[in-house]
């Protein structure tokens, strides 16, 4: 979010500010520790998790908001593994931490944007697996349901005029990023990513929107290497289009 996707971070910041939220940045923040955790470096992960929990617990804020579903899933689902389930400080932090789409739709309950957001584009949506299966930003296809609700990214994009959302055949399929998986199992990761991009191509989309940029590093890297010409945007970026006018 700092080095590669500064624009997405800035868009999140501007969007929240425009919605009347006072945004404070945690200058000490580095990482939630997911890389270490998923790699199995338990000792390192535990230290980073504790630092993160301390840094953010000590802030005098009502909510902690992150434009990354996988980081929020780390805090919500995986932190208890290192911190213990009954840790009071952790529970307070957990209960006030939200992924951006959740925060906009479930906490702020926004129904429209306070400016004329417009994005004349045909887009397709990518959910990262943790946002989908841990945070339930959209309904998972594994779950046997008679009726399906619209996903949160789509609900937010529908607040923007002129946008057209193109559906995918199998939107749940993992793109094969998976953090260090993309390096350790590079061959499988590659074919998973290319299959995922093929789905987007088949939908006639040239522009992929997600609530999480971590998979984008992988997908954009593949798109660039294979000259597929996709554009990638964080949902916050799309939501801020038209804000300055």
């Amino acid at each position, binding site marked *: 979010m700092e080095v590669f996707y500064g624009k997405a971070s*800035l868009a999140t910041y501007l969007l929240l500010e425009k919605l009347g939220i006072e945004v404070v940045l945690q200058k000490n923040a580095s990482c939630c520790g997911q890389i270490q955790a998923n790699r*199995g470096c338990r000792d390192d992960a535990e230290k980073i998790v504790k630092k993160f929990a301390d840094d953010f617990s000590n802030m005098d804020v009502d909510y902690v908001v992150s434009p990354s579903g996988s980081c929020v899933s780390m805090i919500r689902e995986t932190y208890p593994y290192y911190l213990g389930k009954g840790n009071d400080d952790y529970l307070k932090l957990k209960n006030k931490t939200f992924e951006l789409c959740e925060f906009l739709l479930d906490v702020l309950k926004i129904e429209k944007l306070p400016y004329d957001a417009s994005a004349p584009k045909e887009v397709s949506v990518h959910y990262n697996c943790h946002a989908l*299966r841990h945070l339930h930003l959209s309904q998972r296809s594994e779950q046997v349901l008679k009726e399906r609700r619209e996903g949160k990214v789509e609900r937010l994009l529908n607040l923007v005029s002129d946008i057209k959302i193109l559906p995918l055949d199998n939107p749940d399929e993992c793109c*094969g990023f998976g953090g260090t998986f993309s390096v350790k*199992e*590079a061959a499988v990761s590659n*074919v998973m990513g290319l299959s995922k991009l093929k789905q987007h191509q088949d939908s006639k989309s040239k522009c992929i929107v997600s609530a999480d940029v971590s998979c984008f590093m992988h997908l954009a890297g593949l798109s660039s*290497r294979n000259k597929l010409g996709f554009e990638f945007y964080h949902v916050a970026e799309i939501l801020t289009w038209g804000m300055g006018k």
Partner: protein
Amino acid sequence: MKRHAELAEDFLKDKEKALWHNDSVWSVRKKRDQLALEIKDFEGLKDLASEIKLHTLTHLDEYLEAFEKNALARGIKVHWAKDAKECNEIVYDIARKNGAKNVIKSKSMLSEEVHLNHYLEKKGLEVVETDLGERIIQFEKQTPSHIVLPAIHLKREEVGSIFHKNIGTPKGNGNPTFLTHAARAHLREKFLGADVGISGVNYGVAETGEIVVCTNEGNADLTMGLPKVHIALMGIEKVVPKLEHLSVFTTLLARSATGQPSTVYTTHIAAPRKGGEMHVVLVDNDRSKFLGDERLYEALKCIRCGACLNTCPVYRYSGGHSYNYIIPGPIGSALAPFRSYKNYNDMAFACSLCASCSGVCPVKIPLDRLLFHHRQSAVQEKAVSKLEKLMFGFVSFSMLHPSMWGLLNKSALFFMRLVPMKLINLFSMGWGKYRDLPNVDKSFSELIKERKEKR
């Protein structure tokens, strides 16, 4: 021994076949989705199945003893095997006492786990698999690449040539119906000449002492019913308390496994055939070790439906033989590292942690969480290279020290702006082989600073 990542890379060299494998396996997952919708509350049924299993596993001693008592009362002989060696010895001993030469088998993942065929063959017995898929791979001396669809990695033409080589079907005939008829004729001979039939067990009912075997081809019924001696191998986790609990599992099993409303045959065996013998071998083989682990014991809920394999993109794109353990895919990767971190630590990493497996599992095993847990133990057990540990140590240290982290980010930016992307890609290991690094634009700190200066 090659690791999953290398074996997967080999599998993916035949890209067309890998994509075909993915499509075939995924079509089974799609059938599961359709069939599951026919049940009024499939998700509720999954909860119930999970609870029955958790209850049974936490009262396993009581139910196993009840099962033994009731089975004995029906004239079924019950044996207890603490490990693979004991299991194989018990089976061979029964065969030897009956002067057996020819053994037929229906599908049993437990027999694969204990390497029973190999053991019996070394003792001079002929062992013939009667499940079609198992028979195909037995001809090729392969292991199953899927727990329900053991020959899913083979195309029909390949099966045609295996049959041509082994049972003399015409060269070049890959017609599935023709090949099935040929296999039936071949197997009929084996059924009629068999002295002992060995089967697996899907469920052992504690209340009644009977066993239940679910199959699609009817071969298990012949295996259990034709020879004078029937030996059933049963993992100790396969016991269910009462008959009434069975319907929960039979409703879930075939739907989750192959997208069928039920298996074609669901056979209850409650006594030896007239004048014959029936044995049940209760096998532990590390199951009590799992039972003693506060997280991993949930893996024992597994009913071997294979739904987690069908949904797993890593399994679909890498094939079952890329996993070194006899059970591939998510459930195999949950079971294997606990048996030996040294041999199987790579399996917990053959996973993008997408968690689709946990969502389809009909008994709600938190598979992705178990793999996550294994990863922590794998690294603790020094199953990860020193260089990697060192690199991670450096990154972790920086993350813990804000000024260091800031410096690291700034130098990364500086470096990537200075050095051409093509050169960086050369040194970015597995990453650069297939992908470019993202373009570096302005960092968040720089953008925020610019904005403040503008105001």
